[in-house]
């Protein structure tokens, strides 16, 4: 077999046992690797209705056919489970050397079930699995854990293990805890908390296996073209500034949510802009393994530490929480990394709490001094969330669950979809994105579709809703599903001539199987159908595809999109158009016919 190993490793933490199993090639052709393979395995390996924190909920790591081919931006893996934040599918991506090592241990997937009795980490090699105590690692950050395990597991010949680990937040089952490796995070959906529930601190990998590709020459030719394009004008933004470049643009376009989505634009947008970060301070460029774009930016805080910063983190603590000082945002990012917290959900939940404090809805908050823009109070809450201390215990549940404890008014401005906090895209001024966020299987997500691209390109009138958006969102989700299953970084997406034809050609060269553009498109649709099927099985209801009440009742009060709102009827129209584009019924349920079409 080329491109894949054709097998997975099942690990049971309860019994400390493991076994290898073949993966049918029909499954690999149908869903590729990454997110697609993860969704497919989750459907089969998770008992219906399994609680996210139960031993039954599988934690699935998947590799992908392009990993290890030398193709730029492909050192990635997916980790898939049932999310403790949403109760639906969590499919997160992360990257770098851990991803390369996953492929080297000779499997396409790890399926980890059960729960350990004591803190544990796994050392996985080509030969099998060792279950190690992690008692001495409890309370350490992911980075410290990674360093300790790498040191401990280095072989006499100096072979290194690659490690993905959780921090304190994961151990304490914070519902939006991350899994981290080499400073990268599988961020959204609370994968880290599922680790914590299993008393699993880390997974270490050390392998030697290689996967051959069917047509080396062809793969190298395509790789060379993409490498060249990856350093051209299409990616200049990522190379020169990184994703933080979004802030100033979004602000100017009335698409930067501020103060818990109460407003836009942000007074300090200039000071917090990516351009200012790059111009005013020391910054360093980094990249994932095997990447020529290298979009990561590290900025030095006043205390002298270099800190990675992405747009979503900058948004979540800057405009969303009202923090105006760049250094405070860097410190917030650092704390989230240290404890292993998803920055979007952390910022989103704190912003929600700040509004509760503003409105006097939650008396206990008074002691914290929390208010929008009060950087010290906001920063102090981050460790409290990770330790589940004081009000942090409620915030650790995420804004949806925390709001149910406070009351209906607080629920009306809890800015989440399916329990996942919204990313930094203002849905009222980005109507295609509004639909994308409402229907996304993993909750309010800006990664599993690029619905905002239609809004930001002038392809549609971004301030108006219409029935054409369903098809755009479905197509964008399918595109992302293929991208996330090959896996190729989304920042390479503009470097293809014709994405489906180019990647079909590439996949044929890697696997030796026949792929066509139309076939790959269908793979994208199949993967999204699978995710939805999983969610339906886990209790999805039509009202789960919806947006927070604030977005549907309050027009934007200022900025270039002043007065623009989104009515429930407009959202309903777009959602119906999405179901129609997908061939689902009016309730958004997948028909038997559709299941048959995809052999599901």
């Amino acid at each position, binding site marked *: 077999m080329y491109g894949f190993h054709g097998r997975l490793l099942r690990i049971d933490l309860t019994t400390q046992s493991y076994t290898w199993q073949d993966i049918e090639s029909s499954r690999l052709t149908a869903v590729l690797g990454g997110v697609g393979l993860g969704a497919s395995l989750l459907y089969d390996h998770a008992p219906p209705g399994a609680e996210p924190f139960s031993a039954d909920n599988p934690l699935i790591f998947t590799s992908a056919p392009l990993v290890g081919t030398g193709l730029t931006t492909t050192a990635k893996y997916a980790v898939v489970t049932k999310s403790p934040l949403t109760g639906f599918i969590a499919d997160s991506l992360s990257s770098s050397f851990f991803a390369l090592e996953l492929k080297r241990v000779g499997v396409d997937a790890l399926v980890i079930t059960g729960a350990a009795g004591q803190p544990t980490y796994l050392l996985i090699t080509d030969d099998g699995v060792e279950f190690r105590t992690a008692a001495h690692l409890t309370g350490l950050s992911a980075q410290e854990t990674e360093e300790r395990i790498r040191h401990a597991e280095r072989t006499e010949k100096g072979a290194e293990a690659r490690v993905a680990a959780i921090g304190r937040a994961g151990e304490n089952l914070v519902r939006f805890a991350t899994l981290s490796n080499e400073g990268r995070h599988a961020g959204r959906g609370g994968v880290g908390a599922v680790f914590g529930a299993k008393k699993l601190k880390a997974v270490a990998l050390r392998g030697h296996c290689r996967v051959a590709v069917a047509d080396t020459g062809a793969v190298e030719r395509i790789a060379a073209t993409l490498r060249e394009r990856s350093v051209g004008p299409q990616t200049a*933004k990522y190379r*020169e*500034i990184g994703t933080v470049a979004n802030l100033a*643009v*979004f602000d100017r376009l009335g698409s930067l949510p501020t103060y818990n989505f109460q407003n836009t634009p942000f007074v300090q947008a200039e000071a917090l802009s990516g351009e200012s970060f790059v111009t005013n301070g020391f910054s360093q460029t980094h990249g994932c393994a095997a990447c020529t774009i290298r979009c990561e930016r590290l900025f030095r805080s006043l205390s002298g530490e270099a800190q990675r910063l992405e747009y979503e983190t900058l948004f979540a603590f800057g405009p969303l929480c009202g923090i105006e000082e760049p250094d405070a945002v860097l410190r917030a990012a650092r704390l989230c990394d240290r404890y292993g917290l998803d920055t979007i959900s952390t910022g989103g939940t704190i912003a929600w709490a700040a509004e509760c404090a503003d409105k006097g809805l939650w008396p206990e908050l008074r002691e914290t001094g929390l208010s929008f823009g009060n950087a010290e109070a906001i920063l102090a809450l981050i460790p409290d969330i990770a330790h589940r201390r004081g009000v942090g215990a409620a915030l650790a549940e995420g804004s949806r669950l925390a709001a149910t404890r406070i009351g209906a008014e607080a629920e009306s401005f809890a800015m989440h979809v399916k329990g996942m906090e919204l990313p930094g895209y203002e849905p009222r001024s980005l109507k295609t994105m509004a639909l994308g966020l409402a229907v996304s299987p993993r909750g309010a997500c800006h990664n599993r579709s690029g619905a905002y691209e239609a809004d930001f*390109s002038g392809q549609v009138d971004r301030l108006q809703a219409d029935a054409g958006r369903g098809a755009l969102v479905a197509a964008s989700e399918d595109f992302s599903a293929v991208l996330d299953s090959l896996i190729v970084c989304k920042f390479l997406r503009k470097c293809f001539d014709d994405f489906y034809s180019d990647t079909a050609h590439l996949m044929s060269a890697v696997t030796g199987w026949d792929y066509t553009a139309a076939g790959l498109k269908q793979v994208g649709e199949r993967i999204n159908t699978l995710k939805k099927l999983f969610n339906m099985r886990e209790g999805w209801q039509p009202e789960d595809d919806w947006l927070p009440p604030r977005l549907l009742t309050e027009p934007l009060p200022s900025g270039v999109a002043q007065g623009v709102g989104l009515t429930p009827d407009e959202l309903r129209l777009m959602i119906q158009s999405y179901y129609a584009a997908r061939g689902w019924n009016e309730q958004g349920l997948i028909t038997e016919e559709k299941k048959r079409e995809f052999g599901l």
Partner: protein
Amino acid sequence: MDTQASTRSPALSAVILSGGKSSRMGRPKALLPFDGKPLIAHLVQRLSQRFSDIVVVAAPDQTLPSLPVTLVHDTVAYQGPVGGLCYGLQATRGTAAFVTSCDVPFLQLPFIDYLVSQLDHHGRDYDVVVPVWQDRLQPLHAVYRRSVVPHLQEQLAAQRLRPVYLYDTVPTRKVSPAEIKRFDPEGLSFLNMNTQADYQAALAQWRTLSVPISCTVELFGVARLTARTSRVALTLSAEATLGDALTVLGVECPALLGSVLSADEAGHASLQSGYTCNINGQDFVRDAHTRLRAGDSLLILSSDAGG
């Protein structure tokens, strides 16, 4: 078809109908002076930047100044626009023609280019491209294929003198106000004159248009880092387009040339792939012919917004 084409196409002609009645004006509209020159001379001069073949249809006894055009006279005294259209198209050498009346001082060439480009729209061929402005079709600011002549002759024979009958007969592309506004935000193209008061107002407008406008370019991302500034103020001619603004920007900020802007041999600048432009935080535009208005802000940003 390339909407950016600014060269003169031999396949296309222009027709100016100058035979209409000028009863309310009290003198021939074609001869109303602007800057001391009859309006029709301005129109011919402007249209000749695009069309090498220009036909002027005059009334049977109308006299006009000497112009580099093919002059034809209505054989029958004024039969409404259909008559002039029919005679004019018959006299053209091209396969299609832009047709206008003679009393419109503010023709916008980029908009005319756009109309011509719409003869072939999304793979469909049209015989007529006609704008709709203020809820009215604008038959005397439209593009017609020469192949419609037999239909017009039939209409004339049947005394069906309204152009709209033609639109019901042949494939017709109606251009919406939203499309028009991209090139001509105020609809100046359709501003015609029937009375002395109209003429005076047009003269005032003519003078305004000779005053330059100010626009601001706001640079984001790599463009800002490259230019080392976030804003550039530009002074542009009153009828400046996006292409004109980018050209001036290239002169003001030469650092942008080669990375964000490219310039052709004639010095016209355009955005490189990877960059896009938004006007006033509202509309994303790439068409170099997009007209700018005084006070517009031009945002230059990565075409990969988001992520």
